[in-house]
């Protein structure tokens, strides 16, 4: 279907369109709610923000100043995954126009961004002959990938790639904890959070300092964040030893984890409501006397507790009271409450993604082929408000486009649409501060040289 046909097709369907004021309530709208390459073509043709993406990854090297590294952008790897799972790696582009043309030509289902290499990745074979491995990654954003499917033992509402509003707070917690530590502890400023389109979030740390970290330093940061150590053969998932929590963990606990656990997860996940569930938590208490006392109380009062208070909250208070009361100040037990909270709430990172410079990560503003949702940026300061179930889908965006008619003025096309909001968030909270900072750096460069 060509672009023209698409619009004709939609004109027929305009009849039963919902009110434009309430796009979020729309169930599919007039464009059938499905993902396909025709829709994607329109998206890439009319909406995808090439210039913004390109300006971002240029980091100020697209200007005319003497300090610009003109080869910088062209050494960046892009890779496309096409419709039939054909995978094109080591693509590179000299300009936003080149990027745009290639994307429009190939209509990739997924666009990944890789590292900046020592040489243009399309020409890597030419350098391969010269021996000692000159084709090597030299710069890469520090990235994090958090998937909700890694939390399956901490949520009961969904499993695998499914998410709902009951388990999404786990992602909110992850954003908050990682974001504040990246800023306060590591001193990074240019951090982009993106919804991955289905089951999680991606984080791009773009400060120059972050981009130049070695693999070892990246691994160190990932390990700094790593608390959850469970694998399939070890049920002790979180182990907090020592007389105090490290300041980072202590802050994470008091600022984020405790509240989210007690006010949200405990209730939304019904963590203590049934025997099977509370047994999982009792298993984490290494004191038989306490566990049997709690078990006794909980088996008894299954029906008798007052209806007013949530049973999970009641039981959690009992557990805390018993573990933190004077007579059980034993070292191992004092950490127990915290361990349980960390186990159910603390972020779980995909370590491998962060550790190596050459890991690819999906570009922002891609459309997830399974959900049709756009990988929109998330404002870390407002991440509680982010709702994955209302992220614009491809079909919804096309609806919005139809409503606005066939206006061709490119910038105006975005304004007021849900996509426009996503792009302006990308610009105002991330791109503009970033470019401003790289400009300042350039001018100091010029002075020095």
């Amino acid at each position, binding site marked *: 279907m060509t672009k023209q046909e698409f619009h004709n097709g939609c004109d027929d369907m305009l009849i039963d369109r919902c009110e434009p004021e309430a796009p979020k309530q729309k169930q599919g709208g007039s464009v059938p709610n499905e993902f396909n390459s025709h829709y994607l073509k329109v998206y890439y043709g009319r909406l995808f923000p090439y210039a913004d993406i390109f300006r971002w990854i240029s980091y100020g090297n697209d200007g005319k100043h003497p300090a610009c590294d003109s080869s910088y952008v062209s050494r960046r790897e892009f890779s496309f995954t096409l419709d039939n*799972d054909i995978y094109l790696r080591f693509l590179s582009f000299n300009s936003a126009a080149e990027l745009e043309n290639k994307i429009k030509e190939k209509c990739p289902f997924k666009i990944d961004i890789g590292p900046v290499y020592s040489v243009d990745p399309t020409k890597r074979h030419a350098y391969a002959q010269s021996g*000692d*491995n000159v084709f090597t990654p030299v710069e890469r954003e520090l990235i994090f990938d958090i998937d909700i499917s*890694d*939390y*399956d*033992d901490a949520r009961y509402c969904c499993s695998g790639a499914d998410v709902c509003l009951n388990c999404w707070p786990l992602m909110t917690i992850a954003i908050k904890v990682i974001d504040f530590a990246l800023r*306060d*502890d*590591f*001193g*990074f400023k240019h951090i982009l959070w993106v919804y991955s389109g289905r089951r999680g979030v991606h984080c791009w740390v773009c400060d120059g*300092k972050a981009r130049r*970290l*070695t693999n*070892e*330093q990246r*691994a*160190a*940061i990932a*390990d*700094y964040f*790593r608390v*959850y*150590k*469970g*694998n*399939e*053969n*070890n*049920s*002790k998932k979180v182990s907090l*030893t*020592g*007389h*105090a*929590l*490290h*300041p*980072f*963990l*202590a802050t994470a606990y008091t600022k984020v984890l405790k509240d989210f656990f007690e006010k949200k997860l405990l209730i939304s996940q019904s963590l203590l409501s049934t025997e099977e569930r509370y047994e999982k938590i009792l298993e984490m208490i290494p004191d038989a006397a306490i566990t049997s006392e709690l078990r006794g109380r909980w088996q008894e009062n299954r029906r008798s507790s007052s209806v007013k208070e949530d049973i999970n909250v009641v039981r959690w208070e009992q557990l805390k009271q018993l573990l933190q009361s004077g007579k059980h100040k034993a070292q191992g037990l004092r950490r127990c409450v915290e361990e349980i909270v960390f186990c159910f709430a603390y972020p*779980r990172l*995909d*370590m*491998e993604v962060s550790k190596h410079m050459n890991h690819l990560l999906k570009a922002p503003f891609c459309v997830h082929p399974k959900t049709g949702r756009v990988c929109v940026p998330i404002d870390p300061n407002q991440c509680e408000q982010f709702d994955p179930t209302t992220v614009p889908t491809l079909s919804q965006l096309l609806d919005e486009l139809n409503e606005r008619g066939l206006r061709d003025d490119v910038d105006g096309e975005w304004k007021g649409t849900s996509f426009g909001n996503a792009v302006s968030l990308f610009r105002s909270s991330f791109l503009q501060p970033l470019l401003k900072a790289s400009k300042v750096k350039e001018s100091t460069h010029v002075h020095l040289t």
Partner: protein
Amino acid sequence: MEIVRSQSHRKISPNNVTNTLPLYRSAPPLEVRLEDFELYALDRLRVLKGISDGLSRGKRPEEMEKLVGKLWKENMRHQQASEIVNKDIISHFVLRLVYCRTEELRKWFLSMETSLFRYRFRLENAEAQRALMAEFDLSSRAVSNVEFESIKEKLGQVARSMGQSLPTADAIFYKVPFEEVPELVAGRKVFINQGFAYVAMTQAVSLVATLFRSLLSKALVLTNRKWTSTIREQEKDRLTPIVEALCSSYLGPDFSQMQIVEGLASLSQNYFMDDQGGKHFEPRGHGEISVKDIDQVAKSSFPLCMRNLLEKLREDHHLKHGGRMQLGLFLKGVGLNLDDALAFWRYEFSQKVGLERFEKEYAYSIRHNYGQEGKRTDYTAYSCQKIISSTPGVGDHHGCPYRHFSEENLRAALTRMGMNGRAMEDVMNKVRNRHYQLACTLTFEAIHGVPNDAGINHPTQYFSDSQKILQPELRDIIVALFGGGLGWCILSQTSNVWEGV
């Protein structure tokens, strides 16, 4: 550094010896006898190799400190006390030449020399340590009293999180970019604020070691440039042959490259590989085991980590990436050819994800492992060291069972292997002391009823050692070739070659 053939050599004046632990900033103006050139280097290599072994056995810092002290004393001594420092410096610079030549060699040397430096630093007295810290100009990074007061509470929290006592008012902390102390960051052993890590005096060894490492890393790249541009050609009749023989000669059987029988051939070619590595070679004929044999040989000859992965794969018809790599490359290492590997994985995965998805999503990476896709690198099986240091997460079954299983699960797994009683307790003991490879070695010995003196360093080696015992006709050949320090045998050959020069 001047290299002379004559017996005479200058002694350096004591004034030049400022420190017993040198930073090797520049090559010394020394004359070195050609014999010493090689002998010193070999002695140092023994130290580095010993460190490498110690690390791969998961030795703890205190044990490493002891080991390094012992290795140094045994190998780096000299009849003349004044010569000890020279030997240290000379041997370091010779090995720099030897190990500057490829990325893999540099990586190994850098990591071993840094470990050596770290533990030697720990063995130094406080005064010498301070002198070294002064060389790195650490004092200029000391935290001022005002700043110390403002973060005292946080520093105390970090100390208590490690079970240490609170820092006193006169405690010295250094404020450094967090990038300079990655291991302290990784272990959450420092307070980090706005990009700076606050390193306690007692942790300065990490900082000094990182600074040493970065000095050496830069120097190695420069040495490499000099080597390729001038030295190799200039010295082609004299030093070049020694240098080229040195790195490959010592390392002994390299199990990452070993094919059960073809290993013999590869030994004579002396590949040096590390885990990350992968060299471009023609794929050799694999095919020592076939799909139908896997379960049977797994039962008799796979180490626990691989048995576990295989079991899980048979159960779930799926393994996550880490597991596919660990098991897949091992199977390749013990001789499963590409076609059989594809058949093996296809049979399992297609039951879970369907044939189509298998061909689309998984077959590529199997061919990739066999060097048939992408950059066509012939990847090698993971060593114990790599497996032990992996970090299996949710849904993962890879890693080293001795390290990553809970005690309960490990006991259950060992019982399924037929372990019990005394032998089981011995294994658990090693595990508690974090000697994971020794635990694996004990398991091997208990199951086969035969001592394994070399110890298990590589899953492929576990397999081949097991097969040697189970297939007596092969055993004789292999014992003759592999047994008892083959590395030394090659070593003495090189020495002979050298004497002829």
